[in-house]
């Protein structure tokens, strides 16, 4: 088991291996992401029953919730990749970490935008300072911080390291932010409006949601792979195997 893990680690560390492997994966991943996405959307938009309170506006859930979940896990993945880079100096990890930041920020933005749009018909306002909304906003800022910092650094290596350090500090803080915000919101003046409590959802509503969540993660994997491959091409451009690709 341990040997196998070690081997996997060394393979993962090799850009060439990653590049060639993903070459084969991409079509399947694309297919899977699109198929699940289509099924989820059709089921969610056409077949799921309307919510008895919110009517059809609840159909926003099929993008809102997957995006929100992904935005949070992507940050953790970014921090983990950053840590791997800091500890083992694995270039691949640095590229993956860097590549996740804009994608995670995009999904965070999607969650915020769809949430805000959803809020208008259900709460009658675009934004409230609810605990979950606030901590999501802070997550977006953390993403922006990582991106801006990497952007600003002159040398590439410094950019990777700085991004990783900040992501790690942020990861320690995410739970703190989340709990403090929740706690603040319950103790302070109670929020006039609340996110719907986790409902015991009708299976016809629930299934499309689960499928959409899967689809979103697949899409995320695809995006990360596509961007990482570009990083590999750029940084390994002087390797023989990349030159071959370039010449063909």
């Amino acid at each position, binding site marked *: 088991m341990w040997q196998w893990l070690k081997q996997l680690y060394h393979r993962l560390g090799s850009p060439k291996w990653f590049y060639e492997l993903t070459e084969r994966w991409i079509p399947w991943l694309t297919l899977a992401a699109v198929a699940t996405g289509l099924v989820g959307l059709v089921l969610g938009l056409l077949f799921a029953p309307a919510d008895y309170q919110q009517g059809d506006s609840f159909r926003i859930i099929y993008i809102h919730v997957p995006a929100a979940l992904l935005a949070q896990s992507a940050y953790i993945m970014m921090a983990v990749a950053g840590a791997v880079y800091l500890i083992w100096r694995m270039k691949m990890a640095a590229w993956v970490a860097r590549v996740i930041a804009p994608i995670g920020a995009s999904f965070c933005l999607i969650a915020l935008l769809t949430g805000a749009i959803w809020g208008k018909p259900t709460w009658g306002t*675009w*934004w409230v*300072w609810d605990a979950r909304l606030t901590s999501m906003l802070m997550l977006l800022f953390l993403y922006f911080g990582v991106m801006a910092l990497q952007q600003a650094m002159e040398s590439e290596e410094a950019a990777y390291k700085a991004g990783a350090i900040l992501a790690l500090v942020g990861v320690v803080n995410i739970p703190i932010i989340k709990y403090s915000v929740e706690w603040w919101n319950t103790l302070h*003046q109670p929020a006039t409006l609340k996110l719907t409590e986790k409902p015991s959802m009708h299976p016809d509503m629930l299934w499309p949601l689960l499928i959409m969540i899967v689809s979103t993660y697949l899409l995320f994997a695809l995006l990360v792979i596509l961007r990482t491959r570009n990083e590999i091409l750029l940084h390994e451009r002087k390797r023989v195997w990349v030159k071959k690709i370039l010449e063909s």
Partner: protein
Amino acid sequence: MSLVSATVRRDLLLAARNPGEWANPLMFFLMVAALFPLAVDPDPVFLGKIAGGVIWVAALLATLLSLDSLFRADVDDGSLEQWLASGESLFALTLGKALVHWCISGLPLTLMSPLLGLMLNLPGEAYTALILSLAVGTPVLSLLGAVGAALTASLRSGGLLLTLLILPLYVPVLIFAASAVYHAGIGMAYNGQVAMLGAMLALAVALTPFAAGAALKLNLSR
């Protein structure tokens, strides 16, 4: 091509090379506005009442912070010395600098402000007043700020000193602008306040570049 237009072009180029220069004030603006509900009270009705004031305070602080680097970098790398050695009119140069500063700070802030209005539950009637007051008020902030930045350009820890010099000058702008937004929010007329802001802008364009130019010369005898 005169030195002034060359400098404007160079500064815009620098801003384009380093997106942080215009993106950071924007983010700061957003964040300060987000801090207030956390620190005081997230109740929407309450927030709606203070929204105009909070947005303006945030805009003012964001402008202030971005001012610090207005002349500092030019002092440090010798560009300022070359300006002074060039013998060209300092009036035009400082005016150009202030213009560039507004383009990369005040203008984006103005465009961004409706979003903050939404988040802080600003009354619907107040949006026009908010945008108008920012559009007329932020250039005044940039111009006045240029004077402070020029005065503190050669100081190491200038950032905070600059704040001290400039904040009192910003008070009139803040008062009229916030009052414009507030009156708009309760459905009253606010042309008077905007007219005042306009007058301030005219005055600032005419006078501050002289002051800033003179201040820059202070950095000369080192």
